[in-house]
């Protein structure tokens, strides 16, 4: 049902109900007033008659002309014989009591006033229906303006509501005109106050959508840009392999090519990992994960890489540390940290720690060059590589680490190593809820 129909039905019903209520009130008030007025009239008439009647013989003369009135006048002698009846054709009940009373007659109720004078009983009666008729007439007169106004109001409401709803229509059109490329906010100038919250909420949504899309676009642009580097390397390495004159040159070129392919593969994998770790993506397969066990497993897997660079790789995780999380994601987090540590450390070693201070944590410490405090926030940006570093990373590792940590309600911090030089990356997880 449209707002317009609803409004018309409800408003007109209310108006009609109001009119009926007013008419009802008027009816009862009018009847009350009529009662008072007519009772007064009855009494006055009876008193006047009493004052004028002295002898029964005078009755016909005194009461001459009273037949025309709406009142039925009867006079009884002390012995009960009726001496006079102004409307002989109407069967009005006899006197019941002195004063006012309501009497049921053959043709309805009567209002009766009786008075005694020198043995004569004078009774004046009037049909009660007369009073109801008057009250009804008053009520009807009250109701009539409402009834006349009703169609008029219906028409006006129809037009006015239509006019006000035009804003909804124009807002809808404005929304329809929005595209993913053009998400500018909807102008709120002429929109009525009631629709403002809707428009404001919509604008908020449009804003968030727009920034999400912009981020996505930037990510794709960044990713495309970032893929150029490994692709450039691959192209050059391939050409060198093609140009190779002898077996040793060819072997050298193939070695470079293999490294190039491994790097390009890693960049693509990291991009996929980053996309999968989208903060808005649902958390799946959450289960208890022992960080200590994870630390040992990742260290085992990367031991060869560390050894190849002559680095030590130690694990310091004496007791199980269980958190709720996605095992694969947490593994990727730790792998990235250890991989970074090995990549950027020239000599010395890497330590992986898992423990629970007040909160469960993972820590990877290296003896590499470290990261100056001023740069520590920027290294989390996608594709950012350290200013002074010459690594061949994808520039995505820490971005992935941060996303995974955030999805687990955790926090990543870059700290100074406990030793003389190096970097300590600490991931704190939220306190495990019992």
């Amino acid at each position, binding site marked *: 049902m449209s707002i317009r129909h609803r409004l018309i039905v409800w408003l007109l019903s209310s108006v009609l109900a109001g009119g009926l209520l007013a008419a009802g009130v008027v009816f009862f008030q009018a009847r009350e007033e009529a009662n008072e007025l007519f009772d007064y009239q009855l009494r006055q008439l009876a008193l006047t008659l009493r004052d004028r009647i002295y002898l029964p013989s005078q009755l016909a003369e005194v009461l001459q002309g009273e037949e025309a009135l709406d009142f039925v006048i009867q006079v009884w002698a002390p012995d009960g014989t009726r001496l006079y009846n102004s409307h002989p054709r109407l069967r009005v009940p006899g006197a019941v009591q002195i004063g006012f009373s309501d009497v049921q007659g053959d043709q309805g109720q009567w209002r009766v006033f009786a008075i005694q004078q020198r043995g004569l009983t004078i009774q004046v009666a009037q049909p009660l229906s007369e009073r109801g008729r008057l009250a009804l007439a008053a009520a009807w007169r009250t109701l009539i303006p409402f009834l006349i106004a009703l169609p008029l109001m219906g028409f006006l409401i129809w037009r006015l509501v239509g006019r006000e709803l035009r804003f909804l229509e124009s807002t809808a059109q404005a929304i329809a005109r929005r595209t993913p490329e053009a998400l500018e906010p909807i102008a709120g100038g002429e929109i009525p106050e009631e629709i403002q919250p809707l428009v404001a909420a919509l604008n908020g949504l449009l804003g968030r959508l727009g920034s999400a899309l912009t981020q996505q676009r930037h990510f794709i642009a960044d990713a495309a*840009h970032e893929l*150029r*580097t*490994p*692709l*450039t*390397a*691959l*192209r*050059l*390495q391939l*050409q*060198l392999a093609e*140009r190779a004159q002898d077996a040793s040159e060819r072997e050298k*070129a193939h070695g*470079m090519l293999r*490294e*190039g392919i491994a*790097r390009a593969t890693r960049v693509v994998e990291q991009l996929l990992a980053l996309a999968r770790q989208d903060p808005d993506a649902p958390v799946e397969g959450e289960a208890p994960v022992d960080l200590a066990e994870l630390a040992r497993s990742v260290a085992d897997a990367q031991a060869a890489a560390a050894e190849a660079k002559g680095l030590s790789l130690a694990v310091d995780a004496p007791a199980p540390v269980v958190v709720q999380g996605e095992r694969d994601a947490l593994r990727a987090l730790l792998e990235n940290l250890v991989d970074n540590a090995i990549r950027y450390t020239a000599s010395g070693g890497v330590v992986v720690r898992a423990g629970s201070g007040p909160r469960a944590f993972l820590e990877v410490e290296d003896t590499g060059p470290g990261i100056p405090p001023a740069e520590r926030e920027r290294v989390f940006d996608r594709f950012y*590589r*350290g*200013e*002074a*570093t*010459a690594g*061949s990373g994808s520039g995505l590792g820490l971005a992935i680490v941060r996303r995974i940590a955030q999805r687990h309600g955790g926090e990543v911090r870059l700290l100074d190593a406990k030793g003389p030089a190096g970097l300590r990356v600490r991931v704190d997880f939220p306190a495990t809820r019992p």
Partner: protein
Amino acid sequence: MRLLLVEDDAMIGAAAREGLRQEGHAVDWVRDGAQAEAAAANDVYDLVLLDLGLPRRDGLSVLRSLRQKGHDVPVLIITARDAVSDRVSGLDAGADDYLVKPFDLDELAARVRAVLRRRAGRGSAVLHVGELEIDTAARHVRWKGRDVALSAREYALLEALADRPGAFLSRAQLEERLYGWDEEVASNAVEVHIHALRRKLDPAVIRNVRGLGYSLAKDG
């Protein structure tokens, strides 16, 4: 020719250096903007290959600062920034050419040759010195109408001398043109190559004056 390669990516740098060496160039490779500026200011390079996205100092600012200080070494920008505005600002900052990644090794070599040629005031890729004909694009040498097979070093040495016929280049200067920093140079390497050239061409083609160095006879 002696080239300065400025490239922060290890793999691209290694492959480009290797490829350019195969073309007979001596290549020095630095990996950040600050080193690039310091090295280029030495004025020993015939050409600088400059990446723009560099650690420590952006390539464009290195280029501007070089030009401001009056170094007019030819600069070829190699970068992933492919917007027209990037090319325009690169060229306006004083670059001689602009190559977008991913690029082809052959194209890189060709553009290097083209830039060097333009700087030497030659339009053609083929040099004529007396009876000597050097096709710098094909790196092909003809002597008195017959083809001569030269090694990469021999060719580089001949091309260096042919650049300014009659002018003397010292042994150190020739070594500089032929070898990068990280290449082992035997003490008599230049003499060995000169000897080979004389044998393959004609002993009279290359003159040697003690104290001055070597020069290519203008009339062959």
